[in-house]
């Protein structure tokens, strides 16, 4: 009985950890632009947004020089 509970808790914990890791890994490999405004609001632009296309070249140029 106790072993069954322990196994269930282990499976649940592993599944949560796995989800977190997969999400984090996916997020790491995504390109996005986050703009923060003077009124405290924020806008996250995905990599396929037209505004992102205009911003990315400058960011890539900085990264290429810095690394």
């Amino acid at each position: 009985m106790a072993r069954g509970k322990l196994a269930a808790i282990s499976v649940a914990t592993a599944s949560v950890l796995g989800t977190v890791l997969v999400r984090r890994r996916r997020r790491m490999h995504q390109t996005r632009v986050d703009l923060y405004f003077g009124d405290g609001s924020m806008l996250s632009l995905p990599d396929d947004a037209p505004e992102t296309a205009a911003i990315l070249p400058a960011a890539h140029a900085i990264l290429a020089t810095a690394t």
Partner: protein
Amino acid sequence: MDPAEALTDLKQISTQVERAVVVRNDGTLEASTLRDGAAAERIARGAADLWEAAESARASLGRPPLSQLEVATPEGSVFAVRDEARMVCAVTAGDPTVGLIFYDLKTCLRNIAEEPVEAVADLAEPVAAEPPAAAGEEEPDGQG
């Protein structure tokens, strides 16, 4: 604080910041963590271009004035924070602690901005010596 000193502090505080530059809002490079001056100039120009592109996006989206930005890519992230006088732009590795980086960059800008306040405080002494001419009219500090 001197911009170069502020960047040294930033590098000590934030281990995630790999490179950083301080650029005046007219595009002049003030300080950088890079030894290669030409590379620092290129990053400064890139930071100015980045801000300009972000400002255009902001305008087209009809949003309020921009205060800071992050561009996250698989190769790393670029951060920029700007005040009335200058911008600090930093490069980090992938998946940085965003809130912490912005906090450190704002602290860096604040430290630099505090420098003129000290200069004004130095100038305040001779100004304070003038009141005897107007002694009969009003208290020098406006009280009364």
